């Protein structure tokens, strides 16, 4: 349990603590950095965005009279003449989970003020993300080559292509933005912006702190989280 020490207030665990936190003055999320709270609320909002996308997809797929393409075959990859279903997707999942793991470790080492480890791990995460985006680009080009378009496809219901490009595209945009920020923050860690009380950020009066790595980590894990749902609903359904 995380128990930030708040002066003048005994923090209780569990639901009792929740009631006390909510009823107390100044902050509701005790010991939670402003930026972290903001990232959580943003992710909540973003969850609604992805939920709406996936619900639309469910409604669209569920109510079409035309047969839905069989994803297992559409996304199969030919390796040595054998068609392996979902191979690329499996590798992409593998890469994204790997990068999620390195991110989690980066956060850990950030809090231990281990600058070197933290920096390398953030960089590794960024590279993982980049690989993922690259593979997604490959997947897109392969599908486009096979004649899948947002408005039609040779395998069945036209909405298949529409939803596929829209949802993976939106997710891919999230990943790409994440990658950009990962590179920036890797630089910031290496440059020592979080050492010795922290360097002032670009647009703010706030001083740098390793909590920023955790905030970035939250975003990155969220991207991974969304992929879990896309994987289940898009590729396995």
């Amino acid at each position, binding site marked *: 349990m995380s128990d930030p020490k708040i002066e003048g207030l005994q923090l209780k665990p569990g639901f009792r603590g*929740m009631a006390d936190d909510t009823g107390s003055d100044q902050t509701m999320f005790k010991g939670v950095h402003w930026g972290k709270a903001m990232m959580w609320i943003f992710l909540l909002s973003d969850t609604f965005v992805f939920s709406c996308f996936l619900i639309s997809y469910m409604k669209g797929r*569920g109510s079409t009279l035309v047969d839905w393409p069989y994803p297992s075959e559409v996304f199969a990859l030919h390796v040595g003449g054998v068609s392996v279903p979902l191979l690329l997707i499996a590798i992409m999942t593998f890469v994204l989970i790997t990068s999620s793991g390195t991110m989690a470790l980066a956060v850990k080492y950030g809090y231990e003020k281990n600058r070197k480890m933290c920096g390398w791990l953030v960089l590794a995460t960024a590279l993982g993300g980049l690989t993922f985006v690259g593979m997604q680009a490959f997947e897109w080009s392969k599908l486009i080559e096979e004649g899948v378009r947002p408005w039609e496809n040779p395998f069945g219901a036209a909405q298949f292509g529409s939803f596929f490009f829209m949802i993976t595209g939106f997710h891919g945009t999230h990943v790409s933005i994440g990658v950009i920020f990962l590179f920036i923050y890797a630089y910031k860690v290496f440059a020592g912006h979080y050492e010795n009380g922290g360097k002032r950020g670009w647009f703010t009066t706030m001083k740098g702190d390793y909590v920023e790595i955790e905030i970035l980590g939250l975003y990155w894990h969220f991207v991974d989280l969304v992929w879990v749902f896309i994987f289940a609903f898009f590729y396995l359904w």
Partner: protein
Amino acid sequence: MVKAEKKEQSASTHKIGIYMWIWGLLFVLSFFSYMVDWYNFQGMLRWSLILFFMFLKAGLIMAFFMHLFWERYALVNVLLWPMTAIACFIFLMVAEFEYTLFSRAFYFVVGGGA
């Protein structure tokens, strides 16, 4: 003062073993969900397996990688309650697509004669 800071720091730090475990579990679970497709399970079995692995993975990521397990309930609650609105939306849209599908199939293809 310094003490307070130390405590705060240690609160967010956990043994590396936990992360490794979760990491490993995520790979294993992803492998299992891949196997659902590989062995070509169909019907309810497929659905329940997909959803089971999905929620397990999502839960692990949220709880441990995103540290929700260690956060205070005030934050956790605020984040989880809004999901009821999504759940309601999903539930109703399932009813809606079934109705649309029925209506389309009945009036455009099958007809009153069937």
